[in-house]
Structures are given as C-alpha cells and as structure tokens.
C-alpha cells in the first residue's frame, strides 16, 4: 500500500472541517447547515482513520463506525425536525425560525 504521511491526512481533515464550519455559520438554509455538519463529521472520520492507520491499530476504524451511527441518527432526527418546521412555518430560513414559542 502507498505511504501517505499522517500530516497530509490531518491537513485534509482540517481543510474539510473548516469548509463545513464555514457552511454552518454562513448559510441561512437549515438543510444546507445539516449538509455542512455532515462534511464536518466526515472530516473527523478522516482524522480518526489516518491516526489508526499510522499506529496500525483498528481503534480508529471503530471510532469511525461510531461516528457513522451518530451521523445516521442525527440526520434522521434533524430531517424529521426540518419537515415539521417546514409544515408549520413554510420556510427553512433559520432567521425566520428563530422564535421558540412552543
């Protein structure tokens, strides 16, 4: 297998994390914010797998599997919440959804 330096994998993970973070704070559409969260979770998975591969341990892949289940549960609940909000407010703009009136 090819030899990827751990540094380069970490740089890739950092760049993807920053891209996802910019998406979360700059977008106003909640659907795009959810997608940016997926990009962030994915970058953390890259970091775990790179570290696990560098130290020749399988623990990194275990952590990646747990991140995968977390992402699945988060997407299920988040999309269901978005569907409910869209039914009630007819909008996905987070600036219009900022009033918590119960």
């Amino acid at each position: 297998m090819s030899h990827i330096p751990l540094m380069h994998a970490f740089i890739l993970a950092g760049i993807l994390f920053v891209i996802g973070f910019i998406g979360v704070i700059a977008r106003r559409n909640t659907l795009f914010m959810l997608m940016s969260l997926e990009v962030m979770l994915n970058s953390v998975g890259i970091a775990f797998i790179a570290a696990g591969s560098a130290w020749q341990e399988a623990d990194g892949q275990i952590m990646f599997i747990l991140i995968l289940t977390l992402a699945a549960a988060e997407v299920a609940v988040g999309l269901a919440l978005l569907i409910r909000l869209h039914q009630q407010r007819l909008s996905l703009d987070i600036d219009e959804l900022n009033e918590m009136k119960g």
Partner: protein
Amino acid sequence: MISQLPFYIAATIAIIASIRVVTGSNAIHALLYLVVSLLAVAVCFYFMGAPFAAGLEVIVYAGAILVLFVFAVMMFDLQGDKDPIHYSKHWLSRWLGPVLLASVLLIEVVYLIINSANTQQYTSSIVSAKQVGILLYGPYLLAVEIASFLLLAGLIAGYHFAKSADDIGQSNDSMGGHL
C-alpha cells in the same frame, strides 16, 4: 511518489466538492456534490489502508444517509436561500472576518504540524476488516450497544416528528393507538 498521487487527487476532489456543497444554492446539486465528496473521501480511506471503512463510507454515507437527504428534499419545495444576505454587498462585514480568523488558525495549525519536533515519518498500513470486527464485538461491545440505543432513539424520534399535527392529535385522543 507516483503511488501516492491518487490520494492527493481524491483529496483535491473532496475539497472542491465540499466547497461546492457549502456555497451552492440548489439543494439537489449540493446533494450530488456531497455524494462526490463522500466518494472521494472513501478513495482516500482506501489509500490510507482502511478498505473496510471505505466500504462503510460508500454503503452507509453515500448510500443510506444521502438517500434520506434526497427523500427529505422531495418533501420541501425549496430553491435554496430565499434571501441571500450573506452573499450580498454587506458580505464583507458579515462573514469575512470569521473566515479570515479561521483561516489564520488553519495556517497556524498547519505550520505547527510541519515544524513540529516529532519528525518521525508515519506510514499507512492495511488494517483488515477481520481485525476491526474482532475488536468491535470484543472490547467495544458496550459501545456497540450504546450505538444501537442511539439508532433506536433516532428511529422513534424521526417517526414521531414526521407525523402530521392532526395525526398526533388523534393519537393523543386514542392513547396512541396506531403507534
């Protein structure tokens, strides 16, 4: 060096696709870019010596989670940001500052990693799927159980939230008869 080239190409594709996800205005286009990004990351996983994680990335992320996104987008009649204030002429004061700060932090971290005293060269090696499975159902069994609880909670919460309002009213009247 030539054997590492696919990793860097896939990494570049992942970065470009992620940027298009974040900056896109059409939800379906952004979802397709997200699929491209996840596939590129799966290629990166493979070249980092984790073929099992690469398969999981394609099956679970690009297969299952993105299908959930597509189903949800079908239920919205959306075209992206309705009022793109963050890309208007005031964008400089709104989000250029945080972006510059985050970029400075990123450059700092990269500089620290490059110039760190630990110049030991780590190289990737293959960690097989059997090794992962033995670990998953041995020492990490409790974590697997907790993850199953999390997924069950997500399933029930998704079912509950996605019901329409009059459905919830009916189930309150009839003590949740059709749950």
